[in-house]
């Protein structure tokens, strides 16, 4: 307990320094600004804003990125409520009841409870991270290469199971990502692999180019293809704060969703999407009074928003303690860490306590800022929503292009981004979920390295992965998960879940 307080004390002293407070603020502001734009989800927002953080110190950069993440998520909810156009699937759930509330002239309370619910859930989840992270990191420090390899397999399988659509295609995308991650100089032999004689590729494919192309560009292009059809409820937002009665009505739902979301966020493959979806399902079952769900019940906004934020927060736990991303957004965070020269893993906590605890404390600060910032600024976001897309997208495109170019000041990155833009477009057209690919890309080199080491230690005996207990349990879980998902009965259920979510 004392340890916890002193750690948090250190964290807050870092997070509350003027510089970091400023970057946290800028991050939340920019994140909301981009995230509020219809059709641009948190993933695309972070990809677009990633280059902005490169000039900062590692601590400030990560604090700013985390801020961007919450901002983007909250911005997405705002759009879902006001425009009926979700940035990504996690706010699609909020849209169900939020948009109905907006149509009934209650957009204000919907936006208000979304902010309050997110804040409460975020605060609880942040505390959970502070409590749970150190012991987990200690366990992880004892992991050998075999355990790490199995853990990554489990993480990737988890991500695959939770991806939309076809299981086989999600596995294929992971494998493709792993392969893309291998491009560049092989650390063991010094051979430049898959570079096709291009010197720019010897350091590997640029992370920013991949992320920005596959997520940012593809979204812009698809939005352009679809054309602009929006209906914005700007005039009747009304007062923002929900009434006391409404708030009390939502409290149990916020508590339940926070618990559920926090748990789901830690799982491999878990994250905001799972949190909001499950919370909505639970609340729908448990709430019998007032309006039915889907017709503008305020719990249908409070629950998923709390669950989504709690899960978003706790998905930092595996990222910070094990160095393993549980979803594509955490993969971006790891990418950003690596660009900053920090090797992600359990040693971060002991070697860079100021960064580790500063980031955790800044999560709470960021969540507070969201509430403080968004409630008064809501008018501005609404104005932004009424700007026609034909004027917005050239500006977004400009910032993306400058961002990509600025990483290395090399036109080759522009070509690479365009290539991945095309790839992202084809992925959407063929329903190949690109998020597992990004996970694979981050884990590819790590997996190869740990596989090599494990095999070297076991003298080439592949059964080592089943002889070591922790490794065996994790591989067993991964295999079980895959078998379960391949069972026809469960597969049908899974399809139902994902189609229900999309409509």
């Amino acid at each position, binding site marked *: 307990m004392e340890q916890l307080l002193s750690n948090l004390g250190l964290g807050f002293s870092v997070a509350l320094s003027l510089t970091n407070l400023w970057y946290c603020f800028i991050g939340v502001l920019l994140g909301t600004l981009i995230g509020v734009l219809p059709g641009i989800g948190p993933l695309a927002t972070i990809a677009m804003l990633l280059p902005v953080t490169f000039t900062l110190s590692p601590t400030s950069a990560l604090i700013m990125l985390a801020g961007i993440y919450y901002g983007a998520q909250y911005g997405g909810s705002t759009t879902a409520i006001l425009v009926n156009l979700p940035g990504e699937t996690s706010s699609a759930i909020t849209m169900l009841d939020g948009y109905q509330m907006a149509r009934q002239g209650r957009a204000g309370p919907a936006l208000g409870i979304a902010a309050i619910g997110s804040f409460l859930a975020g605060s609880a989840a942040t505390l959970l991270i502070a409590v749970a992270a150190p012991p987990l990191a200690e366990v992880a420090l004892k992991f050998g290469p075999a355990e790490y390899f199995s853990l990554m397999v489990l993480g990737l399988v988890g991500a695959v199971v939770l991806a939309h659509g076809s299981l086989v295609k999600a596995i294929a995308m992971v494998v493709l990502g792993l392969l893309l991650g291998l491009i560049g100089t092989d650390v063991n032999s010094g051979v430049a692999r898959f570079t096709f004689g291009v010197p720019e590729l010897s350091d590997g494919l640029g992370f920013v180019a991949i992320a920005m192309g596959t997520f940012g560009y593809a979204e812009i292009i698809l939005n*352009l293809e679809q054309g602009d059809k929006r209906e914005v409820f700007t005039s009747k937002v009304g007062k923002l704060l929900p009434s006391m009665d409404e708030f009390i009505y939502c409290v149990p739902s916020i508590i339940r969703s926070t618990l559920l979301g926090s748990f789901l966020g830690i799982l491999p493959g878990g994250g905001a999407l799972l949190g909001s979806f499950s919370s909505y399902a639970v609340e729908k079952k448990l709430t019998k009074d007032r309006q039915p769900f889907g017709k503008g019940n305020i719990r249908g906004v409070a629950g998923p928003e709390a669950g989504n934020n709690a899960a978003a927060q706790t998905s930092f736990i595996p990222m910070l303690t094990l160095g393993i991303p549980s979803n594509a957004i955490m993969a971006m965070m790891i990418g950003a860490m690596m660009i900053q020269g920090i090797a992600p893993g359990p040693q971060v906590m002991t070697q860079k306590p100021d960064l580790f605890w500063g980031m955790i404390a800044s999560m709470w600060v960021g969540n507070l800022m969201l509430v403080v910032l968004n409630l008064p600024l809501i008018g501005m976001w609404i104005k932004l929503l009424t700007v026609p897309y034909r004027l917005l997208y050239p500006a977004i495109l400009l910032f993306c292009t400058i961002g990509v170019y600025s990483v290395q000041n090399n036109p080759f990155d*522009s070509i690479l981004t*365009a290539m991945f833009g095309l790839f992202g477009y084809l992925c959407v057209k063929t329903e190949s979920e690109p998020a597992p690919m990004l996970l694979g890309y981050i884990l590819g080199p790590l997996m190869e390295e740990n596989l090599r080491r494990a095999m070297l230690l076991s003298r080439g005996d592949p059964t080592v992965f089943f002889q070591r207990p922790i490794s065996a349990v994790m591989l067993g879980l991964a295999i079980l998960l895959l078998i379960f998902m391949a069972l026809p009965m469960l597969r049908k259920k899974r399809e139902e879940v994902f189609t229900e979510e999309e409509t």
Partner: protein
Amino acid sequence: MQIKNGKDFWAGWMYIGFGAMFLIVAQNYSMGSALRMGPAYFPTWLGSLLVLLGIAVVVRSFTSHLEHPWRLFEFRPLFFFASVVLGGLAYWKQAWLVGIHPWVALAANGVGIVLFFSSFGKRSLSWILLVTVLFGYLLKPLGIVLTTIALIFGASLAGHEFKFKEILFLSIGLAIFSAAAFVYGLGLPFPVWPELRG
């Protein structure tokens, strides 16, 4: 035989293509053994797995219960093959096009990229991608102000509506903003105006 699920069909071929590429290129490196893995070991296994998964998805596209049209997006095979030929030439140019003038090589590469990007999708796709590549190459010689204006005009042509006056104001505004924010504010090493020297 009829393709039922066009999405699976194309996705499968995409996986096969990528998998085969990695698999074939990896054979240039040493395989090593399970004990001491060479640089080809991991990619060979992964590449083979990807090809197998691709085949499975293509096979499934003929029996799928989900119906999707065969034509998912516009595809111009002629452009595509021409760009592949030009790309191949660029890759092997060291071998048999040694004495070629650099401008000719550059033009060939440029045409190749234009053809490649315009072989897929609607106009919006190719415009956005081309504008991005052009931005990367024009920024140093032209400076950020002119490049920004060019990018905004180019990007606007990808949309459904194009109003000259509106875009003119937007581009000038953004040009001033990006010079101020990125060059003077963030200190990025971009030239602001074209560098006038011989």
